C-alpha cells in the first residue's frame, strides 16, 4: 500500500506539493510513483530561477527501466533544488516525501493548489 500523507496536495501525474504557508512550496514525486518506477538512477531538475507553469515539464526521472518526464503541479519560480539527488537519486525511492524532495518554488498563483487532489482523492486515484 502506498503512503499518501494527509498534509500534501497531489497532481494526477504523481507529483506532490507541500505548501509552506508563506507563498512558497516544495515539490517531489509520490511513494506510488517511486515504487512504479523502481530503482531511480538519475534525476534531472530545473535550474534555480526557472519559471514554471503548472503542467509544464520541469525535469526527468530515470529508473533502470525507463526515463519519465516530471510535470510542475503548480506555477512559480524555482528557489532551490535538491542537489543531494545528483549523487544519491535513490533517496527518492527511500524517502519520497522527506529527503527525496526535488525543488522549492515561489508560487505565482497560490490558488492553483486548491485544484490539485487531496490525500483522499489521490489515494482513490492510485487505488
Amino acid at each position, binding site marked *: 500500500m502506498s503512503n499518501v500523507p494527509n498534509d500534501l496536495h497531489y497532481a494526477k501525474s504523481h507529483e506532490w506539493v507541500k505548501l509552506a504557508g508563506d507563498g512558497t512550496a516544495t515539490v517531489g514525486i509520490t511513494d506510488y510513483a517511486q515504487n512504479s518506477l*523502481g*530503482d531511480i*538512477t*538519475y534525476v*534531472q531538475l530545473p535550474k534555480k530561477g526557472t519559471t514554471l507553469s503548472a503542467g509544464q515539464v520541469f525535469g526527468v526521472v*530515470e529508473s*533502470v*527501466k525507463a*526515463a519519465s518526464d516530471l510535470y510542475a503541479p503548480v506555477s512559480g519560480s524555482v528557489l532551490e533544488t535538491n542537489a543531494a539527488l545528483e549523487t544519491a*537519486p535513490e533517496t527518492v525511492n527511500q524517502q519520497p516525501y522527506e529527503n527525496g524532495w526535488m525543488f522549492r518554488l515561489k508560487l505565482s498563483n497560490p490558488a492553483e493548489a486548491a485544484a490539485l487532489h487531496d490525500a483522499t482523492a489521490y489515494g482513490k486515484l492510485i487505488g
Partner: protein
Amino acid sequence: MSESKRTPLYAFHAAHGGRLVDFAGWEMPVQYRSILEEHKAVRHAAGLFDVSHMGEVAVCGPAAGAFLNHLVTNDVAQLYPGRVLYSPMCYPTGGVVDDLLVYMRGPDDYFLCINAGNIDKDLAWIREQATKFNVTVTDRSADYALLAVQGPKAAAIVQSLTSVKLDAVRYYQFTEGSVAGVHCMISRTGYTGEDGFELYHAAGDAPALAAAVLAAGQPHGLELAGLGARDSLRLEAGYPLYGHEITQDISPLAAGLGWTVKFDKGVDFIGRAALAAEKQNGTPRKIVHFKTGDRRIVRTDTAVLSQGGAVVGRVVSGTLSPLLNEAIGSALVETAAVAQSLVVDIRGTKLDLILVKPPFVKLKKSP
C-alpha cells in the same frame, strides 16, 4: 498474443514479492526488492535466479556429436562427458540463430540449453538440419526447471545442500547429483560473471529446491534476484544477449565472439564460408562496449554519432552499472568510425562514449 507462460515457481515469486513482467512470452520476476541491490548481492554474496523459461533440448544418437559440430561454430569435439561448451549457432549467412550451451552427457547423449524467446525457432532449425544425421532431437523444455545460484558465496551455499564434491566440478563442467534431496544436473556455469551453479531439475521439484537454496543462502547474504539484475550483471560482465549484441544480422565475429568460431575444427559447419569471408574482408560493423562517466542511462536504440554529428551506429544494450555508478552499454558501430571519438545525445546533452574492453568490473575467476 498468446497467454503468458509461467514457470513452476510462479507462486514462489508472488509469495516473495516478485514484480512479474512479460519476458519472451513468460511471466517472470523482473525484481523482488531492487534491481540495484539484487545486482550488488550477486557481486558481493549470492543471488538465486529462476531461469526455468530457458529451453532444453536433448540431442541423442550415434551421430549426435558430428551433427552438433556441424550445427554450431565452436568445436564440439573438444567436449568430454561432464564438460560444457558455449557456442553460437549460425545461419549460412553467418548471422546468429541463437547462442547456447552444449552439455556432453555421454558419447551419444548431448543436451542443449537455449534462449526462452528462441525455443520454437531453434527447434525448427535444429530439426531441419538434423534430417541428414542419425540423431533424435527432443524438446525437454517443459520437463526441466532451472535455478541459477550465482556469486562468491554460491559454492558454499550449494555445497551445504549436497554431498557431491563441488571442488571437483570446475568452471564449465557439470555432474549429476542430489541437491537438497532433488536430483539435479549441477553445472558450474552462469550469466553473471561470478562463480556459481545452474541446477537443472524436474519441474515439479522447483518449489522445494528454491525454498531450500533460499533458506541455506540467506545466512550467507543470498537474495532472490530477478531478470533486471540478470541483465545488468551480464552486461557488466560483457556477455552478449540474443536480440541485442547477437542477432540474425550480427555475426559472432561482429559481436567480438571470434573465439567461439573454430574455423580450424576440421568440419564444415553452418555459416563457415560466410564467416571466413567476413574475417578475411573485415567486419563492416562491430559491437563496442562503452561507459560515459555520467549516470544518465544510454538506452537501446539511441543513435551513436561521430563528433561531426553523423549517425555511425546505435546502442544495443544500456544500463547503469551498479558497481561503477555510471552508464554502461554496448553499441553496433561502423568499424571505420570506431577509431574516432563517438558521442550520444541524451535529451540535448552530448556525452562522449569511453570505449571499454569488458568486463566493466574486475571479476573473480571460477575455479
